[in-house]
């Protein structure tokens, strides 16, 4: 079990499922980023907006922005169910940057707790997109 690859499957509503082979996967868990290597124990985690990185055996990596949801690790298989899935290469950088600016401005102006939480979430999403686009490692 300890050698070989991990199968990564990414699902999101309105998105065709993505299937990848990887040597290691980094997942933005709710309790912090965790790395899954072959032989990982069964795990079920909430995930936060962030970047999912699938490192292939040849050193190449795939970057995906994921926006909340769940990750299941079982038998060298990582299944991610996220609300929104975006491949780093297809992301619109300018738009994400604009969204990040807007979210920052909203946070500064926010008075109510709810307003603040919504702006924070928007900021987290925009940041995740930018990181995925820039192929930023953790």
């Amino acid at each position, binding site marked *: 079990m300890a050698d070989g690859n991990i199968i990564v499957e990414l699902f999101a509503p309105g998105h065709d499922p993505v299937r990848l082979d990887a040597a290691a996967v980094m997942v933005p*868990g709710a309790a912090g980023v965790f790395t899954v290597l072959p032989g990982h124990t069964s795990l079920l985690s909430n995930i936060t907006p962030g970047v999912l990185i699938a490192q292939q055996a040849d050193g190449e990596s795939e970057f995906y922005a994921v926006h909340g949801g*769940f990750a299941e690790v079982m038998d060298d298989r990582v299944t991610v169910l996220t609300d929104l899935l975006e491949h780093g290469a297809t992301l619109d950088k300018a738009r994400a940057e604009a969204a990040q600016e807007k979210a920052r401005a909203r946070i500064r102006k926010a008075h109510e707790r709810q307003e603040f939480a919504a702006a924070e979430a928007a900021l987290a999403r925009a940041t995740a997109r930018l990181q995925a686009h820039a192929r930023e490692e953790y």
Partner: protein
Amino acid sequence: MPNLQDIKRRINSVKSTQKITKAMKMVAAAKLRRAQESIIKARPYAHRMRDLVNNLATRAELDLHPLLGKGDEQGPVGLLIVTGDRGLCGAFNSNIVQRALLAANTEKEAGREVQLTMVGRKGAELLARRYGSLHATYDGVMDRSPFEEAGQIVSEMARGFTVGEVGEVFCIYNEFKSAISQTVTVERLLPFEPEPIKEGTAVIDYLYEPSSTAVFDTLLTRHLQIQMHRILFESAASEHGARMTAMDSATTNAGEMIDRLTLQYNRARQDAITTQLIEVVSGSEAL
């Protein structure tokens, strides 16, 4: 024999009906294409989610969360029936209502209380007439935001389940197969169905991050909402498919009717001409 004027009027009326059914068919076809796309894209996520939750129900300790409860197979049963808001779609609504009545009566004979929740105005009207009291009705769901509405429907359902008002919840809806075929499906939403354990495999519970309660809270409610959302889309796609087929045959029928009436009209006209000719001929002979 009806006179020419009458037949002419009927032909025109059938023609305008045909125009309407033809237009409805086109509209349904366009909506169907969009609905079909969204259901096909929604399915993999929803199905994987269901597998995950069933898997979880196998592994986790069931008393960790009220929604993971075993339910009560003898207690009151909740039926969630998904129909359309509009008619003119063939047997779409009545098929569902019939299946729902059958299910409700079977459960009643088994001595269980039945709680009916309706989604869709048309089915609610039909069922209220034929069954009586409904627990709750939702309409216009697809016209507003289906995802939020799905959340509301399931949160009421989950509440009923956790306080023990219902021991089981089934959903009856039309599953979309293709434009011309929909199947009435009965699916158990609650309690979740643990997967049968394969022999010789050890069942190990997951590690949970950040904690089992946090994961369950979000995952289980999310799961119900996603399933409900999928069911709403299945039903919507089926409805458009059913309407397209129904309107297609209505258009064909109207065409046949116009042909028949036109034949009748021509015959009546020919008759009238013949009669007039005979009159002229016999009149001239009489001179």
